[in-house]
């Protein structure tokens, strides 16, 4: 009987240790490390600046591209209140962009290299320009 008690006590101590150990590991696993005041890493993300400045972007045509048709499409984006002037050495086109600032128009190009100058003029007279060279060829090489 005495032997049984000793053995039981030993088992109970063991169970107690295991339970305590499990509780400790569980606590460690779930514990979230709260950064101390000294270790706080401040991530300075740049403040997004709302670009309200006047701009002009031309999507099409690409500079120094080739065209196998005499009519090409000029498209891009600027501020909605701008006036877009498209000039080549022989033709011109003036368009007003949409309410989103997008513009698209077709122009006719000449043989060989064509210089295209695109101007966006703001109501206050400010300008932005983009230049493109588009070469017309039907040759396959």
């Amino acid at each position: 009987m005495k032997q049984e008690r000793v053995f039981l006590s030993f088992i109970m101590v063991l169970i107690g240790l295991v339970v305590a150990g499990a509780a400790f590991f569980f606590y460690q696993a779930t514990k979230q490390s709260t950064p101390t005041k000294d270790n706080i890493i401040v991530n300075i993300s740049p403040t997004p600046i709302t670009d309200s400045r006047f701009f002009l972007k031309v999507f099409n045509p690409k500079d120094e591209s080739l065209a196998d048709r005499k009519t090409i499409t000029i498209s891009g984006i600027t501020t909605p209140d701008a006036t877009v002037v498209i000039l080549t050495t022989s033709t011109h086109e003036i368009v007003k962009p949409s309410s989103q600032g997008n513009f698209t128009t077709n122009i006719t190009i000449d043989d060989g290299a064509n210089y295209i100058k695109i101007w966006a003029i703001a109501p206050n007279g400010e300008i932005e320009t983009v230049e493109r060279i588009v070469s017309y060829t039907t040759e396959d090489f």
Partner: protein
Amino acid sequence: MKKIIIFTILFMLFVQISRDSFAQKTTKTPTPTSIDISDQIDELKSKIASKVAQLNLVEKRGFYGTVTDASDTQITLQTVGGDIRFVDVDELTKFSSDSNDSFGISDVKKGMSLGVIGLFNKQSQRLQARLVEEEDALPNFFYGAVYSVDNDNFTLTIAKENGARNVIDVESITKTYSFTSDELVKSGFSKIKETTPVIVIGFSQKEDKNITLGSRIFLFPEISVSAKINLNPSQEDVTPSTGSGKKLVPIIK
């Protein structure tokens, strides 16, 4: 004795359960199979990227520029934007000119305007020319505001954003347009008013490079003059007075 056995079983069960629960929480390490697949995918991606790069290495392009240097096998061009472009010429390169039927590489001279079409190597940044064509020099494109109008000589002076002023000679060939109410309408010299924003396309005169022969004039009366354009009379424009009421007129040679 039974109690001991029950406790032992319970203890073993408890240990097993706690081991399982901890095993689940440990980070999963990728199995060898998943590593192999991942490596294979990466290798495949790399191969595809390499092949795509090879295929896109050469593309058709067209240059326009002024010749800064020319040899039997190479032409160096300066683009409108001021960039330098290198053009390689070989036996397959064709030459063309409206003014010269036998135009060839030996006729390419410094200062000449050329249009070149060929295969551009993105890696070497050189164009293998397939067609070299002599082109006309580009006209001048001005943006500014009308500073003054000379009704006697049919000229107008344009003040530009950089502070420079250009005299535009308006001839019978000059076409004038006005952009009003979102519409481009034909206009004339008499309708050109001072302080109107304007775009002018024209060619510099050989005799006086400050005078441009206007080819097309676009007036924008509904647009304000840019703050960068100075329309105030410059020091040169103010005719100095002698103080006696008699104006000094500069001598023009």
